[in-house]
């Protein structure tokens, strides 16, 4: 078992490196692996430097952290709710962030995406975080009835999700085409335009939250045994549940603030991880994060290159992969 876990880690890490390399190479300005390595070591031409350091590398780094954040949020939600299908993208958190961004975009209809100003780059993550946070509060209060039951939280989340989506649609209808396309990337989730600025916003927060969750991974294990046993083992279930839900919300909000509404990533990573290393969160959380990062990288590379010059939002690609797996899970689960 110990050995196997090592192999799994090593292998997923190798896949991550490989997919990062492929992501660096491919695109409208294709590069060979030699050129990429050369550029990385500082020997690239001016164009190569721009492509690698200003465009592709930040995007890859942001993608990895988005993967870590969403996968960890998924681990938490599945553990706390004891529902293997729970996922941050489906319970309204991400939709809240998208709504906030859509409102921002439509409130200043002149700011087309080809003329994104610096203030917008900073403003969008902030606004989106605010949206995610407010919607999470709403979900929390709506599901509060003598304490928050995780199942109720999920169901309320699904309801709020569809409500928020209805409002988003209303805004979309009244938008100009340019605004609409920009809004689209947020609603479906996209890494388009990721820069080092985004990375600087995401990375520290994600690292911090991830560390906290990892530190509490044993508590998450015990919570999965059910409220009564967890109480017996010395956990204040209500309090810990609340803490974990806050962590999950924060993680998905920060991911959404830079990448928009990406669904299924929080489901795929943890599930594949569970099959590989079992349900103990101490092993599961890091492996799931690795797998989710690989997935989003691969999906993003595909989204950029499949229909060039058009780029499809990575969230869409992920749901195309995610749904069949989801259905498979539903069918298999007895």
């Amino acid at each position, binding site marked *: 078992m110990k050995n196997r876990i090592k192999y799994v880690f090593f292998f997923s890490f190798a896949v991550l490196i490989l997919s990062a390399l492929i992501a660096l190479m491919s695109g409208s300005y294709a590069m060979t692996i030699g050129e990429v390595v050369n550029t990385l070591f500082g020997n690239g031409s001016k164009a190569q430097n721009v492509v690698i350091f200003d465009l592709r590398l930040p995007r890859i780094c942001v993608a990895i952290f988005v993967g870590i954040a969403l996968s960890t949020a998924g681990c938490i939600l599945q553990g706390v709710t004891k529902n293997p299908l729970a996922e941050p993208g489906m319970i309204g958190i991400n939709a809240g962030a998208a709504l906030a961004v859509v409102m921002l975009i439509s409130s200043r209809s002149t700011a087309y995406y080809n003329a994104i100003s610096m203030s917008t780059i900073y403003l969008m993550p902030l606004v989106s975080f605010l949206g995610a946070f407010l919607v999470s509060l709403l979900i929390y209060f709506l599901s509060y009835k003598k304490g928050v039951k995780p199942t109720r939280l999920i169901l309320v989340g699904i309801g709020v999700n569809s409500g928020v989506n209805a409002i988003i649609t209303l805004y979309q209808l009244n938008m100009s085409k340019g605004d609409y396309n920009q809004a689209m990337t947020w609603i479906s989730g996209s890494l388009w335009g990721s820069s080092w600025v985004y990375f600087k916003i995401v990375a520290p927060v994600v690292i911090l939250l991830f560390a906290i969750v990892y530190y509490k991974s044993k508590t998450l294990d015990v919570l999965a045994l059910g409220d009564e*046993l967890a109480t*017996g083992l010395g956990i204040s279930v209500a309090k810990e549940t609340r803490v974990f839900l806050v962590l999950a919300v924060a993680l998905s909000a920060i991911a959404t603030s830079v990448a928009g509404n990406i669904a299924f990533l929080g489901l795929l990573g943890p599930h594949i991880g*569970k099959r590989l290393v*079992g349900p103990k969160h101490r092993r599961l959380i890091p492996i799931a994060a690795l797998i989710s990062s690989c997935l989003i990288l691969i999906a993003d590379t595909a989204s950029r290159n499949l229909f060039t010059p058009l780029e499809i939002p990575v969230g869409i690609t992920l749901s195309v992969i995610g749904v069949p797996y989801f259905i498979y899970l539903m069918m298999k689960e007895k």
Partner: protein
Amino acid sequence: MKQPTEKQDIKIKDLKVCYDHTVVIPSMNLSIPKDKITMIIGSNGCGKSTLLKSIARILKPSQGEILINGTEIKKQAPKELAKKMAVLPQSPTVPTGLLVKELVAYGRFPYQSPLGGLKAHDLEVIDWAMESTGIMDLKDRFVDSLSGGQRQRAWIAMALAQETEILVLDEPTTYLDMSHQLEILQLLQKLNQENKTTIVIVLHELNNAAKFADHIIGMKDGKLVFEGAPKDVITAENLRVLYEIEAVLQISENGEYPICTDFELLK
């Protein structure tokens, strides 16, 4: 396993428990003896599980105190309490993809630091717990692949790994056939005798309760009807009050406990 310095006991003072707005236990005073097996019996909805859940701090009482070893449970840190008292609920969620030995290792949770692994002593206790429950052979199996009786023993092993002097179980024999019921109860009896563990059980089966209990508590409508040794309290008179039945009783062959051989509903 552990050499007890001072035995833990459970005392209940003026306990009042409500579900929503219905009062389940109006006011209860009770003391559960140390080192003994105590069984709580009563008809459906009499409040016996509610009592147990209050002791296990799953339910918050609206009034009164529950003292463990002289200190109120509210005032003890949850993890500290978990080192004194292990709780096994009626039908726990069966985790998927978890090995038996991993499940039993969860019993060491109250003793572990957040990031630390299992220490030598932990492993010793885990082995001992699996040994005494007879699931050593199953330790590399998945919990969800076990049969009902095996699973119950795995849960008990987890509770044992908590190294507590008090063990609280809510209907541990439900859904088991007669021989497995006996197996579990004998296991608990053995634990009680060998380790002097104080055991509190809610049980439905009257004859099993009478056979294995040192102390029986009868409850009706959230109130204490009787308590004492099975021989003294399992009487036709008491059962008439408790279950509203007319019971035919006889004493077991060794003369130690009463057996209910037949019963009729009260006319």
